[in-house]
């Protein structure tokens, strides 16, 4: 599979402080690759190095086949960057901002306006095309910043914390846009500290803690790493006070615990466990109300693999 990004032993230190510590990873062309980690983990530093805003202290990286140390200008022509801050020009209108981006990326003169208008329509900003950027809402500013990164039709898009500070609807709308970008074949490199966002959008995720990558895999495999034992949750139509104890006796060797009005059973063969549950219900004159299989979330995987609380990440950036 073609690689959009290849990183080998990349380290970035500022005045002796190591922000990114010897990380290596590849991003496949066409995938949404997530960089997940708390504040200060090195996510933005990595983007800055890969996009030429910062030089690596040690190590190397190739972006779209171009060495970032010797050939970054060529790479820049083929990727777009959406920084964490929506930093378009307040004094220019939405359309003027996009036209300027087209000029800067050397697009043919006749395409500046048509491409700008096309993107404004895609992002639902066409009605406000002549309004100054300063007058846009936060969500609109974010959308225009993403549109600006797409003006030159890049093959790779770096998105740094795209939904930070957005309300629920604006964040949702942006996630839909990111899904559409993937469908159109654009590789997306996404940094986020929102676990559910990474789970929803990414094909693969790298977990970054204190400048080091602690795991890289698909969300499903990361979750599987957190899954120690399969578990079943069961509830009965008539709650039975001693159900946990009784089921524990019928299922020797398995952990059976009470969780509110449900019984949670860890491990064991599913067929044996279900027979025990149904037998117990029949004998006690009740029926099973619900049975569900418990799957670990990405949050569980994150906690297990990093040893960090996801609440820390949410609190750091005023998360939703």
């Amino acid at each position, binding site marked *: 599979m073609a690689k959009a990004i290849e990183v080998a032993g990349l380290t970035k230190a500022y005045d002796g402080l190591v922000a990114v510590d010897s990380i290596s990873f590849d991003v496949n062309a066409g995938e949404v690759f997530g960089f997940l980690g708390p504040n200060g983990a090195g996510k933005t530093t990595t983007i800055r190095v890969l*996009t*030429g*805003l*910062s*030089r690596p202290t040690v190590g190397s990286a190739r972006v779209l086949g171009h060495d970032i140390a010797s050939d970054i*200008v*060529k790479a*820049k*022509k083929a990727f777009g*960057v959406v*920084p964490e*801050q929506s*930093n*378009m*020009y*307040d*004094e*220019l209108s939405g359309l*003027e901002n996009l036209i*300027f*981006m087209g*000029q*800067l*990326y*050397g697009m043919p003169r006749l395409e500046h306006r048509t491409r700008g208008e096309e993107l404004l329509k895609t992002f639902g900003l066409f009605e406000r095309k002549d309004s100054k950027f300063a007058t846009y809402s936060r969500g609109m500013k974010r959308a225009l910043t993403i549109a*600006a990164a797409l003006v030159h039709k890049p093959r790779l898009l770096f998105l740094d914390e795209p939904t930070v500070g957005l309300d629920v609807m604006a964040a949702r709308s942006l996630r839909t846009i990111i899904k559409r970008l993937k469908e159109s074949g654009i590789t997306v490199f996404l940094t986020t500290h929102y676990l559910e966002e990474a789970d929803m959008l990414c094909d693969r995720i790298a977990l970054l803690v204190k400048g080091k990558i602690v795991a890289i895999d698909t969300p499903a495999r990361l979750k599987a790493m957190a899954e120690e034992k399969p578990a079943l949750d069961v509830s009965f139509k008539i709650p039975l006070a001693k159900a946990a104890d009784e089921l524990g006796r019928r299922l020797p060797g398995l952990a059976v615990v009470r969780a509110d009005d449900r019984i949670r059973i860890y491990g064991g063969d599913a067929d044996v466990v279900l027979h025990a549950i149904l037998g117990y219900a029949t004998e006690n004159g009740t029926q099973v109300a619900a049975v569900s299989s418990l799957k670990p979330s990405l949050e569980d995987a994150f906690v297990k693999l990093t040893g960090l609380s996801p609440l820390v990440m949410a609190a750091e950036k005023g998360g939703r």
Partner: protein
Amino acid sequence: MWYENLRSIYYIALKDMKTYYLKPPAISWGIVFPAAWILAFYLRNPRNFEELVPGLIAMTVLFSTTAMEVVVINFELRLGSLERLLLAPVSLSGVLLGKILGGTVFGLMITAVITLASVLSLGLFSVNIIYLLLILLPSLLVFSSLGALLCVLVKEVFEAQTLANLPRFLMVFLCGVFVPISTLPPVLKQIAYVLPLTYTIDGIRQSFGGAGDIAIAIDVVVLIALIPVLILPATRLLARRFV
């Protein structure tokens, strides 16, 4: 590559003209301040005002260009939009040259108005236009570059304005705007010859038919030589901010 860089320099300068030329710091320091000084000196001594014209035109070049550099660089450093330019396929020196060109064009516009008004109102029709352009164009680039060099040292607009005032006022008082260099004590005279405004004033004075202390060719050569001397460290300092 060079062609793409030139194109980007042009569009960055064009964008800066559209975006920043009416910003209050550009108007107050780049237009109002030199205009107020000129008016003050005219009201004080209207009879011998012609003698002050070269110095006042030079002062306009100095203030208009440096004021605009503060706006085009420090506004963007503060808002983070300078990074947007650095993410585009243009070299860091290309971005800085675009900024310098924006300040140069602003300075040229203000200086042209002041020069034209001086020529027409005082009847200074003997001016040598070619000499004047040979001095003004490198001077505009020199002081834009000086402004850029000072601006990349700090982040905030007010910090940059304050920092820029140091060389501005030093040059206004030492380089012959109001007092001829020949009347300065030897030590200050030596300092004056290190400062670029001396060569601008001397050249403008000769363009208007006055006597100069230095050959106009030397004024032009010194000014042209100073352009890379100022741009190179400015580029390095800007790179250090980001790399």
